[in-house]
């Protein structure tokens, strides 16, 4: 049959498959494994610097949460974290703290611990050098986000993991919403987004169908599609922060556990 198999699920990209790598050739498909394989950030190629920068831009908040939970004031945490990322992206010497380069999450925390340990011994003067093209950390929104998460008594490492999970969800959620908005389906997204948090909800399919001016059957299909796409984007985003050979489902489970645990 002509192209009948275009629909076969084998054709669908598998976000959970391990990134490709070659013997000795260091090819990788996920953002983090690309960066990790390149060696010291910034040294080999600009494209990797861009990738590292993008990853940091997405995931700076958990580092901030860690710094705050360890006792730094909001202002101090902001300076420290800003300095860290500047150093990491521009100079890359901090990256040597974690030669193993496991997943991005553990790498980032290890580097930060190393960096802040050194910073404590120094005067604040050398903290910021340049930093013109590192993204600015917004102190106030960061504090609000911290408050939003709850869990004020958590130990810093756990706070970091929880913040990471939240950041991941937010990134994926925003991306998914943008897809729907781009397709002119913003209203559909707004109405159905609660289905991303499970089955229970204040509204039934019937009620939603009324709001959207469509049939219940169409709503069911739309919910199914939305969840499907969400799952795909979620796994792809996670996979982007993993190193070669690591399993997305494991990381997903791990992050779930960090949110499910009560402090």
């Amino acid at each position, binding site marked *: 049959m*002509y*192209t*009948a*198999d*275009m*629909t*076969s*699920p*084998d*054709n*669908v*990209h*598998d976000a*959970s*498959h*391990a990134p*490709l*790598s*070659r*013997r000795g*050739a*260091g*090819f990788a*498909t996920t953002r983090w494994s*690309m960066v990790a394989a390149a060696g010291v950030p910034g040294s080999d190629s600009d494209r990797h610097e861009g990738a590292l920068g993008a990853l940091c831009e997405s995931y700076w908040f958990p580092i901030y949460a860690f710094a705050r939970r360890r006792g730094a004031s909001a202002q101090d945490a902001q300076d420290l974290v800003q300095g860290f990322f500047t150093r990491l992206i521009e100079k890359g010497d901090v990256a040597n703290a974690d030669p193993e380069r496991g997943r991005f999450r553990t790498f980032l925390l290890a580097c930060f611990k190393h960096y802040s340990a050194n910073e404590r011994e120094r005067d604040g003067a050398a903290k910021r050098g340049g930093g013109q093209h590192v993204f600015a950390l917004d102190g106030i929104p960061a504090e*609000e986000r911290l408050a*939003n*998460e*709850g869990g004020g008594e958590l130990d810093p490492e756990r706070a970091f993991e929880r913040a990471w*999970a*939240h950041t991941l*969800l*937010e990134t994926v*959620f925003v*991306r998914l919403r943008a897809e729907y908005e781009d*397709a*002119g389906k913003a209203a559909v997204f707004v109405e159905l987004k609660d289905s*991303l*948090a*499970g089955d*229970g909800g204040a509204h039934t399919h019937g009620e939603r169908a009324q709001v959207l001016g469509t*049939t219940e*059957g*169409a709503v069911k*299909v*739309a919910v*199914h599609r939305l*969840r*499907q796409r969400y*799952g*795909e*984007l*979620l*796994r*792809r985003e996670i996979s982007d922060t993993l190193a070669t*050979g690591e399993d997305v489902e494991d990381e997903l489970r791990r992050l*779930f*556990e960090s*949110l*499910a645990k009560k402090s």
Partner: protein
Amino acid sequence: MTNTPICQACGAAIPANGALSGMCAPCMLRQGMQGPAVPAPAGAADPNTPPLADIRRDFPQLEILELVGRGGMGLVYRARQRRLGRDVALKILTPDLAHRPDFAERFLREAQAMAKLSHPNIVTVHDFGEREARYFLVMEYVDGTPLRKLMERGQLDGADALGLISQVCTGVQYAHDQGVVHRDIKPENILMDSSGGVRIVDFGLARLVGTEDAANPDWRLTRSSQVMGTPHYMAPEQMHAPRSVDQRADVYSLGVLLYEMLMGELPVGTFPMPSERHPWGDQIDEILRGALESDPARRIQSAGELGARLDALSTADSAQSAAGRPVWSGVEEIADRLPFNNSSDSWGGLAEIYGLVTIDEGELFLEYRTRDCLDLYSSAPKELRIPLTQVLDIEFKSGWFGGGELRLRGRTMSTFMDFPGFQPGSIRLYFKRDYVRSAKQFTGELQRLIGTRTG
């Protein structure tokens, strides 16, 4: 503590502001963890598929016969050109794609380039355009089988593989000479027609529907979307330096394809070379290494060269021994044993079940443990034995990420009763991508034993 709203389902605090306001994070993660999707309700109309009547109305000069395919890029209909009396394929691109501002212009450019290709190994584009906000292509209709199907059925041997890829190379080289790069060569895009000829489909379409501008903020989005091409077959530069992509990316894809045809698996991780498994000698190894080279500068530079080297092999001894040797052997799989991994919605949705299902002495034997995500301990293993006579049927269903599920139905409502997540008379077992082939074999084996005809 301030009065933060609490999630009804799990008790977690729900943020009142920020992007995730009103959304419960643990519940979202749990939802994300749901394995293969709950299937769409049967019979529900797909709001994204236009009714056939609409298509017929919009394309009056075609006799639209039936919808024959559905992919990431759009829908394919089989149709007949009334005046010319010939069968064609009408491909209608997904409307979502057309929202990008420069789409119309790019469509015109790419479709013109595709239409210029006229070669026995390439499916011809007869016409293209836009009608009622739908972009479409009218192409030659090929009654053939995608390579993917042939590979799955085990119908190709080593010599076939070499010959096929060589033909594909001829077509690809011709297109490259005309300035068109395919960008999405994979077994689904190559058809074998009834006379054994090879026809390549969707030349250049990936470029049309994707966007390669890495500076474009949409790029990260598109990387996640299906239309960007299958990662397994994509050359490294297609992923991280898309603007530098040229015809050598197709050579890479051809290499992956050749490898998969000869070895029965994708060249992923530390992968063995053909000489390690088959007595074919080093020449194929060398050719594969040349095609799979990450650095385009060190890769075999043209499809034509790849094809020529494969042709040279065909006359050599290695091909003689390759002939007649089936390649899709699936060496280490055991047809009657399958590991599975379920997340359960019972126990507050925080438990996971994993185990092994085996066919053993006329019984279906399920051995499993549960793991409670809150406390991280594994319970003692549980067992369930069901005589095969009590099993009505088994159905295999691919899941979204390449994993899948097996649905087992029992003869009575209480068969499988003790298994978690059971619904009257049936259970589902989910498994990961690595076990797809095992799952298919398992299904086949069980169906054979319980006397069901394979579907």
